[in-house]
């Protein structure tokens, strides 16, 4: 068909599905006629049916022998249905003659079917029913936003707000108890996907789930986060990168130095920091400390939270690849290491001070937040790859980046990004307009979607269509 010849003569690969469920994959140039295709299909390795008994259907049309594949705009990856007829009744619909387009060359500028807006393949599509109504505000799925979730983590206020919601715990539990949803969360997030089973385990871990659903812990966390925005990053960094970040001459290989030193200082004062205990289960995991021995030693926050938490946290973040070296109750070196600590180690000092003066904590936190934005960077060299911080996963991609130590908030918060306090309609003005133009009119949801995707319209559309 000379008038069908298309500049782009590259062959396309498409599927032919026969009524007997057989599927053939063919690669043919677009100029191939339907009759040629049928002839090819008649070969024994394909349908093994004479051409005159084949009927090919594509996109709601019966293909006519004389036409080329291009005239039906068959595209890469599409599927043509093959129906074998008993008799060789080669009649076709005259109506198609009139309606059959007579395209000369325009196959390339058709409708953008690759928009991938479809929920057809989306594993989440089935979950958008009433059963899951209201789940959109969960931290789970939403935080793993299309852009990795880091674009706009929920602010502390939003977090706090969310935590006020009494349904939160049960919803979250339900979500996490649903293996499908967990799987799709994992699938939908490149970072988690890379982690494979450990992510799944973490989400399935009842202990982890309990932590997540304990509003008290979460509120504590949000509070912490508010108090020192740089912390999550900074701590993550310090966790693994301790040796570079806070050199402690002479004790570099004394793994439990800081915790134990701290314990020595405050062995029996659990009450001096009354607001802390609920926070403790997060102690290690939250701060990106992967639980390796180096991490345990280097986590200054281990020092901040004396007493029981470390063993606990080791379990709580039970998916740590290496909890082995974590021996915080190793007291042997305690007295001596405290002596060895040069006064120049600010954290040691501070920790000691803080232990006896809970109020001092505030100052310190403030200082950490403001003064150590760079610490997060150290996390990138975290020598404990594979360690898994479940909260890191929750909060975004950074957590996995450099191994356990690179806490996500490192990426976001160091240097601490100035908070954008403009109202969403202003911040996302252009994107909202685009969404409106596309037909999404629900302001609240649009804003939410944009927020979750860091202002990416494409991501927001995907989010809107899947939630």
């Amino acid at each position, binding site marked *: 068909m000379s008038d069908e010849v298309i500049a782009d003569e590259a062959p396309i690969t498409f599927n032919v599905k026969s009524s007997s469920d057989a599927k053939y994959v063919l690669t043919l140039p677009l100029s191939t006629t339907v009759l040629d295709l049928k002839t090819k299909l008649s070969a024994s390795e394909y349908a093994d049916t004479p051409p005159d008994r084949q009927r090919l259907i594509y996109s709601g049309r019966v293909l006519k022998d004389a036409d080329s594949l291009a005239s039906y705009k068959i595209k890469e990856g599409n599927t043509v249905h093959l129906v074998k007829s008993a008799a060789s009744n080669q009649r076709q619909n005259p109506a198609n003659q009139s309606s059959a387009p007579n395209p000369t060359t325009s*196959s390339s500028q058709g409708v953008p*079917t690759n928009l991938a807006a479809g929920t057809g393949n989306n594993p989440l599509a089935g979950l*958008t029913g009433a059963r899951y109504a209201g789940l959109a505000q969960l931290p789970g799925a939403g935080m793993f936003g299309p852009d990795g979730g880091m674009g706009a983590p929920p602010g502390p206020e939003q977090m706090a707000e969310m935590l006020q919601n009494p349904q939160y715990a049960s919803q979250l539990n339900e979500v996490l108890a649903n293996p499908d949803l967990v799987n799709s969360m994992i699938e939908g997030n490149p970072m988690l996907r890379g982690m494979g089973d450990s992510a799944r385990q973490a989400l399935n871990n009842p202990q982890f789930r309990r932590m997540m659903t304990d509003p008290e812990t979460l509120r504590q966390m949000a509070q912490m986060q508010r108090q020192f925005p740089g912390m999550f990053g900074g701590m993550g960094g310090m966790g693994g990168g301790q040796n570079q970040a806070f050199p402690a001459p002479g004790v570099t290989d004394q793994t439990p130095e800081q915790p134990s030193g701290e314990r020595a200082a405050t062995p029996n004062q659990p009450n001096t920091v009354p607001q802390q205990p609920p926070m403790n289960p997060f102690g290690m995991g939250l701060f990106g400390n992967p639980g390796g021995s180096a991490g345990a030693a280097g986590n200054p926050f281990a020092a901040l939270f004396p007493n029981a938490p470390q063993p606990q946290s080791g379990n709580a973040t039970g998916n740590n690849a290496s909890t082995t070296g974590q021996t915080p109750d190793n007291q042997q070196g305690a007295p001596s290491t405290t002596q060895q600590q040069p006064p120049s180690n600010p954290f040691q000092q501070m920790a000691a001070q803080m232990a006896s003066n809970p109020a001092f904590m505030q100052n310190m936190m403030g200082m950490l937040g403001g003064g150590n934005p760079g610490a997060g960077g150290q996390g990138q060299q975290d020598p404990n790859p594979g360690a898994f911080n479940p909260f890191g996963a929750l909060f975004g991609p950074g957590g996995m980046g450099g191994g356990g130590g690179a806490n996500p908030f490192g990426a976001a918060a160091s240097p601490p990004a100035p908070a954008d306090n403009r109202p969403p309609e202003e911040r996302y003005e252009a994107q909202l307009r685009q969404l409106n133009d596309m037909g999404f009119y629900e302001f609240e949801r649009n804003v939410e979607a944009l927020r979750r995707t860091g202002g990416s319209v494409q991501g927001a559309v995907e989010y809107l269509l899947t939630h």
Partner: protein
Amino acid sequence: MTAKVPRNFRLLEELEKGEKGLGAEACSYGLSDGDDLLMSNWNGTILGPPHSAHENRIYSLNIHCGDHYPDAPPTVQFVSKINLPCVDQKSGKVDHSRLPCLHQWKRDYTMETILIELRRYMALPQHKKLAQPAEGSTFT
């Protein structure tokens, strides 16, 4: 909580599904004019259900998705002649009131839903033996 999927997104989804053949085997559908940005007019085919008078026949239909689709059902019209109670014997139009899926249209029904339902309708015991016009004849 699901956002109301706007018309065009919905139709693009359906288009992709139709082209990729992800749906049911026996039904196929696609845009009648691939350049129609409004995606209003569609072709559909139904492969006649086995063990019925429709066996081995391929029925062609035109589907028109109006501006209010998918809030309102599309209009469906047989091109191939067919003898069915729900089909107007002059125009080939499917009578909405006689096909439950059109009569009780829901927003999440698709064109595929309609085609599958029509095929099921053809295969109903009271319909499958109806005498059919010669294959290849069309409504005009």
